[in-house]
């Protein structure tokens, strides 16, 4: 594998959780909060929560769905909210719009449930993000493999999940670099297909590393065949 001119620089991210001004004890209040909370709050309860609860791979999708299920006791609405996939969104505005639409439709259909008190209140929080270089770079697939294997959960999350919003390309930093810097489009696509809802960060990383190893074996095999003396 040849070195490229644009190395991949690994970063990490840390989030400071700020307690917001909105809280909800009913579905009507949830809708009000969804309509008026900051973008950082929508991010916190969808993207960021997926990173901090990555080990829950069965039925946990975002904080709104979890509250509607466990505290507001509305399974059907919870299912709809949980079915939203952050990979389908390039912007917080679009995600917010769909969250609001789903809750509004449910309220319109079930007006009796609108002001029923939930067991516990939902508190809107928001994430303040700090990014720092992780101290690792990669210029080729071997270095990339080593770097990914060493990353913290937050760093892996930053490049693999939250990067989707930054890139606005429905892909992640890893796939973007592999496709554009190393020309490995098939590998990039395979990595982008790893399901972040049914994998933990650890299992997603393990799959990603296996895909890289397979690519390396393919390359090594190709190189040794190329190096075979003619005749």
């Amino acid at each position, binding site marked *: 594998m040849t070195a490229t001119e644009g190395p991949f620089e690994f970063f*990490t991210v*840390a*989030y*400071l*959780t*700020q*307690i917001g001004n909105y*809280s909800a004890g009913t579905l009507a209040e949830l809708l009000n909060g969804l309509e008026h909370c900051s973008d950082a709050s929508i991010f916190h309860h969808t993207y960021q929560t997926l990173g*901090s*609860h*990555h*080990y*829950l791979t069965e*039925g*946990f999708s975002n904080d709104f769905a*979890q509250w509607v299920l*466990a505290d507001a006791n509305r399974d059907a609405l919870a299912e709809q909210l949980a079915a939203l996939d952050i990979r389908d969104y390039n912007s917080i505005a679009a995600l917010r719009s769909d969250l609001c639409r789903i809750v509004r439709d449910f309220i319109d259909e079930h007006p009796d449930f609108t002001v029923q008190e939930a*067991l*516990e*209140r939902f*508190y809107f*929080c928001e994430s*303040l993000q*700090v990014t*720092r*270089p*992780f*101290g690792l770079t990669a210029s080729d697939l071997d270095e990339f493999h080593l770097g990914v294997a*060493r*990353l*913290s*959960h*937050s*760093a892996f999350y930053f490049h693999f999940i939250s990067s989707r919003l930054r890139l606005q390309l429905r892909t992640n930093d890893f796939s973007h670099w592999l496709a554009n810097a190393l020309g490995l489009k098939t590998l990039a696509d395979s990595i982008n297909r790893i399901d972040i809802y049914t994998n*933990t960060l650890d299992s997603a990383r393990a799959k990603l590393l296996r895909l890289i190893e397979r690519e390396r074996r393919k390359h090594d095999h190709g190189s040794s065949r190329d190096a075979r003396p003619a005749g």
Partner: protein
Amino acid sequence: MTTVQVATRVPLDEYSTVIGDGEIDEMRALARPLTGRTVQMVNSTAVGGGVAEMLNRIVPLAEELGLNIRWDVMTGGDDFFEVTKAFHNALHGEPYHPEPAHFEIFRAYNEQNIKRIPLDSEFIIIHDPQPAGFIQARKRKTGHWIWRCHIDLSHPNPSVWSFLESYVSQYDGAIFSSPQFARQLPIRQYLFYPAIDPLSEKNRELEPDFIMQVLTRYSIDPLRPILTQISRFDRLKDPVGVIRAYRIVRRYFDCQLVLAGGSATDDPEGVEVLKEVKRAAEGDPDIKVLELPPWAPLEVNALQRASTIVIQKSLREGFGLTVSEALWKKKPVVASAVGGIPNQIIHKHTGLLAHSVEGTAYQVRFLLSHPEIAARLGEHGYAHVKENFLITQNLKRYLTLFLASQPAG
């Protein structure tokens, strides 16, 4: 002035066995731009209590990461600590009618300490109400001042809170342990979960032989299910309610109940509650009411590890870190949805929440009937604590706060 010298230091690298090398690398990466920056922690006691326990671990770790950190403890007479104890209870919502003299005592001791303790660091973290008045020492908006509130302010006594708020609103920010503990304030409010130390005696791995010794010492049968609640003998922990739940479970399962807590000799109400508990347990040799010595971390650890299910049936709770302690040991937990417990127990994912004696009994029965689900909850609970409630995460939150803050002056 009392600057605390931390006696025992656990190197950061030792935590890599628990959280992995990548997480340690990350903390070093976050701390790099903070090398040499001055940080000051101030609280009201160097020993005893969760805050001192946490600072004892955090301060040396921050130092190892290159921060120039110091920990000062304020001093006060009995009159001061009587007043602040009353304030503490009142802030938790207990009835209290403060007299002007009480506020005067609070002010006087804060002023005395301000004269003794240099408060000139770039980041100053004031813990809990006792030293909240230190903000008066701030000159020309220098430094970044944060008030770290470790108590539940959701239903405070209005007079005490109004007095305290006049100080708190002068800070740059406040930190709370749960969103529901926070107040409407004109400053930024951050969420920092309390944390457990995975390498402490209360949480570290134990030899199976030691666990067996503890069970033998207290005549607990290791072959039958053990339900455990670890908490002081306090009505708000509802130990009698736990016994009632256990009696329902006993109709279906041959199990034992362990209620273990610190000795109640210095707490008149605790002595009374302990009597009630013993009365409720009378005649059932499978209920073990254990008065543990004031500091028995290894016994608590062993009892939690030996448990089949851990219960925390509190009626009111601060954060309830005993829940995280149990989750860290991969135990299925059934707990009340009060205080900070729902932050730790994500219902049906990291444990089960209940709202009554009957609900607690039902959830325990469900888990005893479905050990595979109990095991999965325990595994998820462990991962939840690893990601959110370890002391290393707490340190990372402080580093992030310092990085995100821009001290003036």
